[in-house]
């Protein structure tokens, strides 16, 4: 399989996923609706990397708008039996050092786990979202794939920081991506309810990772916490609603795919969008449309906003006793190809491990095929914890 949608340089060290704009290069978020769309400007993160002398190797495949598990439903790739993400594969093969990805519903985190590489979804507002094909603005965040935590930290140093072109970009945040914070005596919790949702192999991974932490003097405790299912439902509601709204601009009028056959403006919209979106995106549009409708708004969207507030408070409370949460990131050790008609439910279920980070904007690091989450701006703690586990493994 070719992981690139467009290859840009033989001596490039960084890849950029297809949801992130690179000036003059087709950026289509894995969707037919944006076929041939060449943006007039690059994403802020891409510009910052180029300014520091990093060379972009190419653009990597993503599933349409990042809505699937790991990138299996892109318009631009052939179906494969074993699912794995393009950017994560390139890193695990050693072809590139790092890659940028957009974490909107956990796809890059799951992909990193399948390939055994790292991915950091940083704190919301720390990396500019200027120049990403935005779907769920309130929780999506640009993050970094790399082969080890040091490389993740190095790239984060370059791309993080205030950008006036993004109204949600934080102004006075303090950033720390060091990987050498002392971890001895830190406290990490494992969530019982999440371990019950995974297969034996995955459970063993979490336990093995916990052992490595303990060897470094970290205290690891299993606790019970009911936050994750409700956070998942809330995020899926917000995410589908925001995505439905953001992809409504892709209508065949201005750019990208336009149906060949139409008699009037309504047919132009309907035919272009019918042909341009895959079944999963259509499911998300319908679901998102429904939760925003007048009759359902209060029970769905409005309630989810309240859940977001409560979840943030609850997580903050938990973080008074612990420095990080250790969880699985996928329910299985590997994913096999499946039919797109079941994709919406499959992704919904798998997102129970990822949604809370999108919902409340906390950092989430996948490393050693497991996930660490912490309070806002605790990236250096997460990177250091993963870093010490990395060293035990060597």
């Amino acid at each position, binding site marked *: 399989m070719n992981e690139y949608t467009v290859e840009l340089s033989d001596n490039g060290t960084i890849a950029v996923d297809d949801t992130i*704009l690179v000036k003059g290069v087709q*950026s289509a*978020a894995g969707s037919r609706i*944006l076929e041939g*769309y060449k*943006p*007039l*400007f690059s*994403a802020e993160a891409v510009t910052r990397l180029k300014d520091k002398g990093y060379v972009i190797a190419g653009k990597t495949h993503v599933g349409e708008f990042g809505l699937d598990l790991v990138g299996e439903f892109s318009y631009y790739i052939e179906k494969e039996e074993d699912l794995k993400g393009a950017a994560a594969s390139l890193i695990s093969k050693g072809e590139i050092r790092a890659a940028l990805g957009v974490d909107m519903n956990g796809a890059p985190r799951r992909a990193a786990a399948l390939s055994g590489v790292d991915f950091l979804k940083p704190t919301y507002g720390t990396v500019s*979202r*200027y*120049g*990403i*094909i*935005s779907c769920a*603005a*309130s929780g999506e965040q640009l993050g970094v794939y790399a082969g080890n935590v040091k490389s993740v930290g190095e790239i984060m140093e370059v791309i993080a920081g205030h950008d*006036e*072109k*993004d*109204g*949600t970009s934080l102004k006075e945040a303090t950033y720390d991506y060091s990987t050498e914070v002392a971890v001895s005596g830190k406290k990490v919790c494992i969530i019982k309810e999440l371990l019950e949702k995974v297969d034996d192999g995955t459970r063993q991974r979490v336990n093995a990772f916990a052992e490595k932490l303990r060897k470094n003097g970290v205290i690891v405790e299993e606790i019970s916490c009911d936050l994750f299912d409700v956070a998942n439902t809330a995020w899926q509601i917000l995410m589908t*609603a*925001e995505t439905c*709204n953001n992809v*409504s*601009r892709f*209508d065949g*009028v*201005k*750019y990208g795919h336009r149906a060949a056959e139409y008699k009037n*403006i309504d047919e132009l*919209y309907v035919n272009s969008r019918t042909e341009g979106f895959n079944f999963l995106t259509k499911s998300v549009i319908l679901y998102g*449309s429904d939760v*925003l*409708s*007048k009759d359902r*708004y209060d029970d769905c*969207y409005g309630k989810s*906003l309240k859940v977001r507030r409560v979840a943030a408070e609850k997580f903050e409370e938990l973080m008074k006793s612990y420095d990080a949460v250790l969880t699985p990131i996928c329910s299985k050790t590997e994913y096999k190809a499946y039919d797109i008609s079941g994709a919406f439910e499959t992704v919904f279920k798998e997102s129970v491990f990822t949604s809370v980070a999108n919902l409340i904007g906390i950092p989430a690091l996948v490393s050693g095929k497991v996930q660490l989450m912490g309070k806002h701006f605790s990236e250096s703690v997460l990177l250091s914890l993963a870093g010490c586990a990395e060293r035990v493994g060597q």
Partner: protein
Amino acid sequence: MNYEVVMGLETHVELSTESKIFCSCGGHSAAKEPNDCVCPACCGMPGMLPVMNKKVVELAVTAGLMLNCEISRYTTFDKKNYYYPDLPCAYQITQLNHPICTNGFVTLKTSTGERDIRINRIHMEEDAGKLVHAGKASYVDNNRTSVPLIEIVTEPDFRSVEEVITYLNKLKSMFRSAGISECEEGAMRCDVNVSVRPEGSTEFGVRTEIKNMASFEAIEKAIRYETQRHMDAIEFETEELVQETRRYDDASGKTFAMRNKETAADYRYFPDPNLMPIIIDDEWLERIKAMKPVAIDEKADVYREAGISEKEIDMLIHNYNASKLLDDVVALGCDAKNAAGWILTDSVGILRRNGKLLIDLDIRAEDLTAIIQMVDSGSINRMSGKKILAAVIEMGVDPVAYCKENALDAKVDEATIESVMDKVFLENAQAHEDYKNGKVKAKQALFGACIRALKNTADTDIIRELLDKKLSNL
């Protein structure tokens, strides 16, 4: 039976900001050609994020202060979803849940007396683009996309067409005087909610909404047509009234149904996650209050006290540039009544000669002050002052330098004037003779001849004085 008409207004006003509401493209009226004030953001391209233009908030708050509103200290934006080719993102960013201003009122004076109209809310939003239809094709022009608007929503407090038009004129004067909007045709658009009920009834009748009218004339005609339609329906059962949205057709002078309650669109509003809530703290509010111009009625009173004529006051309160210029030159030490003459008579005359209007007046307050002070101090005469004013308006010259270069401030002493006058009398012996024979008009001819002979270098008052002396001595 006698009927009472009940109306509420939603008025959209395009704000006079330099740039659009969420991007740095030129704002209202900046564009010359279709799509020459557009960028990836206001064209709905992916990857661009809205960034709030603070000036919009300040103008909206100013409007709220002028309409006696409560100013929200926490205000947020929502997305309103609908598909139309002139709406590139397929959603409009507007304010639903936390509008910038609420609970105001405006006092109207009409032939039936004075009444307050309650303002329900003022909110900020972005305008849509427009479609240009040519033959079988339609073209999208996004110049107007994301131009900032405020929408002023009243309670159903209007009882006559006269009140509606008075209200709109008042908004227009206020917004122009405050530099909020020029409110020219197309920049002020109105939706009118109309219902009719038997006089004395306290229940509302069936309400219809007439959408998107841009001229006062259309609004007046549409209301008259629609009220008559309602009354006919009630009195003669000509049709069954339903709650619906209607459009006014200028050609036929009638309104037509667009959509009713059942087919009404669900706009699926939700809070825009790309725009953080705006917090208006005390300091910012005080700063806006300080910038807020004096309320229009108070301003008129100030001008009246300064002895400015009613006609001039009317010109001033309808023209922000002119009233600001006047206020500025007064602040620089000029007399208000005198300065008003320079602006509203002399400048307007010069502009008219150039095919322009008062709205086009572009002169620095310092330059006008310099001219007025040169005249007032007697260093030049009024005629020279007007010459300099014309040069400043037409060519943008520096008034003091221009005066020097053209020797307009050359001092002419009385002896010189008298000797020139002697020559004039010799050359115009007939006129002198006529004057002596009782033709008063002949004096004017002699006066003009003196001015010409002195090449406008002498003070006209002195000429007149000396001329009178000479004529009475002879």
